[in-house]
């Protein structure tokens, strides 16, 4: 306990803060930079969990997180933004203030739900799981409130970071699961990337409102 707990708490709290920053950002390049920061904090948090649990295989997870989520994926997103030539603002559904309040409410909700349920668990993984749930919920909120496909990708990736955080906090997750999750995220990312270009090709925009009218959902 003591310092070990404090640092784990700080890193998990910083992840929640980075998620809220993702929710707050309305520019694509800044959004990707915050996503990079998100992945970087995740790597730190997982590495710290590895240290205090003395579980060396978690260091591998941290390295994967650092490589894939803090370097490769944000870099690829940057290239996509560059190739699509979209540096404009991200269109959000509803105002920033309203979504921020919804985000805070989700944090409160996840704490309210998780803390009583995990009362018997040890405090480090308990707070980790509670905060990881709020990262996941905020990721879902980002996906709901963004019209732009890239914004939704950012939401999806931050959601996945939250799951990773929860997995690192819960003891005894096999490395093989971690590897396959990281791999599937990469695959999902490639699929999303291809789709982005297809959408762009078809509609000259990555605003998903164009898809909705194409399907006849609006008017």
């Amino acid at each position: 306990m003591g310092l070990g707990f404090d640092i784990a708490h700080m890193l998990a709290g910083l992840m929640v803060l980075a998620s809220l920053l993702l929710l707050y950002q309305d520019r694509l390049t800044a959004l990707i930079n915050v996503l990079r920061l998100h992945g970087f904090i995740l790597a730190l948090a997982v590495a710290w969990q590895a240290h205090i649990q003395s579980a060396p295989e978690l260091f591998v997870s941290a390295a994967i997180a650092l490589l894939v989520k803090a370097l490769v994926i944000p870099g690829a997103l940057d290239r996509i933004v560059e190739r699509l030539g979209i540096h404009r603002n991200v269109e959000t559904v509803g105002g920033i203030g309203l979504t921020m309040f919804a985000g805070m409410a989700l944090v409160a909700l996840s704490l309210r739900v998780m803390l009583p349920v995990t009362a018997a668990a040890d405090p480090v993984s308990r707070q980790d799981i509670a905060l990881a749930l709020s990262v996941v919920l905020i990721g879902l909120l980002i996906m709901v409130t963004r019209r732009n496909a890239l914004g939704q990708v950012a939401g999806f990736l931050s959601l996945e970071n939250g799951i990773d955080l929860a997995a690192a906090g819960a003891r005894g997750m096999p490395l093989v699961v971690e590897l396959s999750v990281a791999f599937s995220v990469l695959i999902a990312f490639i699929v999303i990337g291809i789709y982005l270009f297809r959408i762009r090709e078809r509609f000259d925009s990555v605003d998903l409102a164009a898809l909705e009218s194409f399907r006849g959902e609006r008017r």
Partner: protein
Amino acid sequence: MGAVAIEALQMAFVLLAAPGLVGIVRAVKARFLRREGPPLIQPYRQLARLLGKEVVLAHNASWLFRTAPYLILALTWAAASVVPTFSTHIIFARLGDLIVITALLGSARFVLALAGLDIGTSFGGIGASREVMFASLAEPAMLMIVVTLAITAGSTQLSSIAAFMLSPVLGLRISFALALVALGIVALAENGRIPVDNPATHLELTMVHEAMVLEYSGRHLAMIELAAALKLLLMISIIICIFFPFGLGGTGATGFLLGLASYAAKLGIAAVLLGIFEVSLAKMRVFRVPELLGAGLMLGLLATLLLYVSRSL
């Protein structure tokens, strides 16, 4: 030394140091813009000049307009007198409650907004409405910070919070880092510093504080400028007292001198940092300010929420 004597010393010190603090901030900003800048004592000279000038009043100015400057200075000075700046052994330390300070500053703001509206010029109205709009977001943020501190320290009194911060049980807490950033945002908004308002211009589209005091002159303006400087010193003192209370709380002559020296040094550092911060940033559009203050409110709220998963609870 008795508590009364220390209190009197503190009240005199804050009043005398406040214009100097403004002078340091201006000098740092001028240096970074490669200008010569006014000398450090320029704010004192300006106050002396204003005190010697006659007061020009609008025909329709009521008694409120004439009494407001003195009320604002008195309320701000009262708030500054209860903050433990260099010693916790001041006689008003028991009153040094964050909620009391917020209320005193809120009253001063109320009087200032009324005075801005009193003459009936459009600038005064714009300034007052903007000031009140910002305050309606800054005050909840301030109260969230107070809640965060009160939950951990078990008190809203500044001297107890400072004592708690100095105690070894503190550890590393992200909530306090968030609260510090939120308090910084609130302090910038309260004082109308750069991302929120530019204290150096009279550009009518952007100004908030200057718009309200546009009709003041002579000794009235001197009172208002002194109160504004005092408010800057007060917010910096609160941040110092809560988050950087090193050297505070010593007893006896050495402890007292140590407290005074460290307080003066911390004020100087804060003024330099504020100057650097201001030259490296542009002023926000007025309609973006609520977003900044909203972020401050969120940070305060998040700090409180994170406390519920921290070690002590």
